[in-house]
């Protein structure tokens, strides 16, 4: 049967639409021109300039500290949440699922605003710690969803076999279930880390003086700074993201082999 060409054409256009801006950005980062309007020769000047921007590196440090801490806690909480959702059914889990799912859809402005109001009304000082609390809150949902999907695909007969052969609940979970789930949990952790490192809106609402993260820094650079510097920084970040994504792809493929 002859296939219609419209879906192919639309898909091709969508992919060009997705990638063209990023390609232009990467090319421009090697442009010697100050304004990026025209090509004035290949240069690594903007990358060299980036090394001297101490504020950026301080922001990178903050971002990584929050990213690692938020990833650890949210992976722990998200994984237990996925276990509960998978193992039990009933009213409690229905409420639990709603509470996990809603943050995925609620606009970020609302989440940032409500967390800011919580911290202000409790008198908590805004800073790295409040950003960490906020990041854990939205990362839990993503981790739980990824691990839950993996649990649903998992072949539980292996766990049952272990139980039949005399393994206790603890041994079966620790020695059989967790190793089987490990790639999924790792992928969820990487997703949480990426989301934390990338988050701007919520961090901006709950940030205090001296707690500038990289996205907050990039935002003020976009507003006031020099575009070529952002091009260079963006290119580095895109390369890091692609690397992380490749690792995740590897982790997810492992299961299928």
């Amino acid at each position: 049967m002859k296939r219609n060409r419209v879906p192919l054409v639309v898909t091709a256009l969508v992919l060009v639409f997705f990638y063209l801006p990023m390609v232009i950005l990467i090319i421009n980062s090697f442009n010697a021109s100050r304004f990026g309007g025209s090509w004035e020769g290949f240069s690594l000047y903007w990358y060299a300039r980036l090394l001297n921007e101490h504020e950026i590196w301080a922001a990178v440090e903050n971002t990584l500290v929050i990213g690692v801490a938020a990833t650890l806690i949210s992976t722990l909480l998200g994984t237990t949440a996925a276990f509960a959702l998978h193992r039990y059914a009933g009213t409690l889990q229905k409420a639990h699922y709603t509470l996990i799912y809603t943050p995925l859809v609620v606009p970020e402005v609302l989440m940032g605003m409500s967390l800011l109001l919580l911290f202000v009304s409790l008198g908590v000082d805004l800073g790295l710690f409040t950003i960490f609390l906020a990041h854990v809150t939205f990362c839990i949902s993503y981790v739980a969803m990824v691990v839950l999907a993996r649990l649903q695909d998992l072949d539980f007969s292996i766990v049952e076999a272990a139980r039949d052969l005399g393994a206790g609940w603890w041994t079966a979970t620790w020695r059989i279930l967790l190793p089987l789930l490990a790639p999924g949990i790792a992928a969820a952790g990487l997703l949480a880390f990426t989301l934390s490192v990338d988050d701007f809106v919520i961090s901006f609402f709950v940030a205090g003086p001296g707690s500038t993260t990289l996205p907050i820094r990039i935002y003020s650079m976009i507003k006031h700074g020099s575009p070529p510097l952002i091009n260079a920084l963006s290119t580095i970040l895109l390369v890091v993201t692609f690397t992380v994504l490749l690792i995740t792809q590897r982790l997810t493929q492992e299961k299928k082999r």
Partner: protein
Amino acid sequence: MQLVLARLRGRKLRARQIETRMRSKDRHRLHEWLVSLPSLGWLTVFFLFPSLIVFAIAFKPSNPFGGIDPGWTLDTIRSLVNPAYLPIIWRTLWLSFMTTLVCILLATPTGYYIARSEPGRQRLLLLAVIVPFWTSFLIRIFAWKVILHPDGAVKRALVFLHLLSPDTSLLYSSGAVLLVMIYTFLPFAILPIYAAAERFDFRLVEAARDLGASPLGAFLRIFLPGVRRGMVTAILVVFIPALGSYVIPDLVGGPGGEMIGNKIAQRTFVDRNLPHASALSACLMLAVLVPLLLVLMQQTQKRSQGKANET
């Protein structure tokens, strides 16, 4: 006598059986609570409770130092009835609607195509759709800012082709906001439609074709109803976050492209009027609530169906 004793013993035994069963049921409940409590507790304190606070603070008086004063007032709510907000509310709804519409129009053929591709190509295409989802949100907006910039290539090409007068600005307009919103939300629309299309039985389309349906007719009357659920999810996960857009209009919109999200941020960061900001947030939350309940109902329904299939 023996008989009575035996019956008594039997009753005792049964009572004990029931008791142990009750105890194991209790233990089951206890386990469930223990496993659920960490995430349930965290999300109650840092998500559910703060969302409710928003409504309370909208009725609090503000003080000039950016804080919240004790007592209650209706002044903030009254100040919301302000004709200046009308164009912004209208623009927010209109831009979110248009974004959703264009995203669905582009995502449906794309999801269809990915689902019909052979496995190798399917994985590659899927990865290509997921990559923008992982890359930095600010950087993707910035990329468009460069492209639409008055000195940028697109502007100059359009002027060169006489499609645009040199004075019109591509950047800082609601058109720019719409374009970047579509760019940002399109992956969110493609994924659920693809997921539904992948489960769709394409032999149904072939059967319709054999029975004389036109390609378009088969697509509209067989395929679309088949992926209806995926489309509803796509519409909601684009429309709800779009209503709360803030960074996109802030960076590429200018004064002519402001949305409700910008007003919330301005009240928070510029005027330091938290009660006013929370009154606006409360309105946005109410606007989001209806589509949100719809998506939640769909999700829990899907889940309980999945559980029923398992057992």
